[in-house]
């Protein structure tokens, strides 16, 4: 950083033409960040497109160009469609579970009572844990032979939670919600607190009940937060990897094989880097589309995309 700083310091302060408003260019200050970003984010982004036209095996020195072969392989097998479907299911279900819950909790937490602040101290803890740690914990908790159900002798809990396709999907949705509902509750809490108190006062004078106030004031006022939070959830679900990988490795029988897991297995297990890159291209395109939708819908909070699940 200091190396970059030098050249500008040598330049003597140039005379300011009009009222000191004109200054020397500050462009050099952006160079270190730009360099890192270009080399390790932008170049890989272009690289993933280029690699999708090869059939690199991930180990050899040469990377053979094979044109559309990887794309054909990816599009011809049902694998991609399946993982798109699984990703979609997880996205929809976790959105449908998290959003009402997070709004409810956010509205509740927005109250100024002491004990609610106390509660939110605990709500945060899942956000501090790594997805790997969460996955390992739940794996042990839900173990059909040695987990909670077996030890507490509760038949209902003695399910093969991660062993049956539909159940495994539901379990993933629950754990994802366990991990991220606190984050979204915080978003809603902040938003609710910004709703002008006078609106509620006016509504109370007009004789509106609580439910009415919630529907007529709180929900419309939260519109932008709902959009932001939903986009964060959706973009987050697009890139779920850590949790699912440690929890199920995409199983049982591909039931939880979301896009990112599919890509990882293709690339680093099956050594088909070309096909894995083609799958990654889907991730990129979907991510960009969602970001554009975000801009359209939200207007503000443009940068919100990758917050969750990162």
């Amino acid at each position, binding site marked *: 950083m200091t190396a970059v700083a030098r050249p500008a310091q040598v330049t003597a302060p140039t005379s300011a033409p009009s009222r000191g408003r004109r200054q020397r260019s500050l462009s050099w200050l952006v160079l270190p960040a730009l360099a890192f970003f270009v080399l390790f984010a932008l170049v890989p982004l272009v690289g993933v497109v280029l690699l999708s036209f090869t059939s690199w095996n991930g180990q050899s020195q040469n990377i053979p160009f094979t044109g559309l072969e990887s794309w054909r392989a990816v599009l011809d097998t049902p694998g991609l469609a399946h993982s798109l479907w699984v990703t979609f299911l997880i996205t929809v279900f976790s959105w449908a579970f998290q959003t009402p819950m997070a709004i409810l909790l956010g509205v509740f937490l927005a109250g100024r009572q002491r004990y609610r602040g106390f509660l939110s101290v605990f709500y*945060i803890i899942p956000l501090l844990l790594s997805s790997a740690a969460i996955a390992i914990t739940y794996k042990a908790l839900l173990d059909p032979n040695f987990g909670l159900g077996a030890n507490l002798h509760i038949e209902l809990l003695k399910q093969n939670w991660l062993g049956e396709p539909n159940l495994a999907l539901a379990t993933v949705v629950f754990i994802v919600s366990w991990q991220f509902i606190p984050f979204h509750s915080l978003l809603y809490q902040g938003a609710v607190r910004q709703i002008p108190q006078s609106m509620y006062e006016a509504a109370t004078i007009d004789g509106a009940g609580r439910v009415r106030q919630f529907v007529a004031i709180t929900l419309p006022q939260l519109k932008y937060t709902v959009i932001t939070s939903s986009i964060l959830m959706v973009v987050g679900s697009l890139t779920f990897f850590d949790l699912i990988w440690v929890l199920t490795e995409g199983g049982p029988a591909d039931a939880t094989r979301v896009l990112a897991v599919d890509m990882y297995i293709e690339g680093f297990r099956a050594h088909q880097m070309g096909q894995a890159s083609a799958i990654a291209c889907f991730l990129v395109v979907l991510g960009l589309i969602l970001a554009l939708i975000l801009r359209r819908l939200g207007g503000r909070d443009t940068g919100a995309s990758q917050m969750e699940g*990162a």
Partner: protein
Amino acid sequence: MTAATLEAARTEARTRKPRPPMRKRLKALLHWNWLGGLAGWFWLVVVILPIYWIVVTSLKAQTDYYLSNPFVPPSNPTLENYRAVLDNSFIRYFVNSVIVTIGAVVPAVLMSFMAAYAIIRDGRRLFLRSTNGLFLMGLAIPLQATIIPIYLLIIKLKLYDTLIAMILPSIAFAIPLSVLVLSNFIRDVPSELFESMRVDGASDWQMLWRLAFPLTRPALVTVTIYNGLTIWNGFLLPLVLTQSPDKQTLPLALSAFQGQFGINVPATLAVVVLTLLPILALYILARRHVMSGLSGGFTK
């Protein structure tokens, strides 16, 4: 509280003049949400139970684990699991995680700060405008999608299986959001302050560190914590970019531990507790900052 004082309080409440109706209504308003209250306490239980279970179980001997009620604390708590884990090169992974996290967060935040300063203070320049646009676009790039070219790049740079391999991409992916949050904050610094420092003959470099840096401190703390947590908990980069056990960071080592200890759940959970401890300590020390850091500055 004795019955007498209770009774006294009750009569006092009865005799006290009613509050102004407006305030009473407001108070009632804050008390209304029974559904929310139900959800609030329910979710507390949902969150706390697994965490309580982790802690309690990590203190049990392995033989007790299968026999005892999972939620009853052990009658003879043991630190044996922790000893076993600490003997098992936990320290190594911990140090690796610290190196990678600090090694990535400090440069990322400093570079993002410099970039944000330039973008705000000199933003009409085409170069800076387009750089800013590039960073904004960068927010939409998922790390997962670029992992294969990053893997190739790291191999070509002969950095595979080193700690630096994890640091470099972590920096790059921390930059877009950091620049966004920091530049939003620097924008609020009154430009009169810069002007008066300039009149005093300060260079941009001096204004950057002596004026903007201290004034931006809350936002700097926010992005530091947000990026720190993301990188500390990162799993994909170590998974793809390392292979030897002594280069692993904690989250990856955790899943390896799980394989290693197999069905020794208490020992695995001891690792979970040990991984969480430093973050929890940070959380207790600086709760407000962590709260804002967690949401990356989105809940102001």
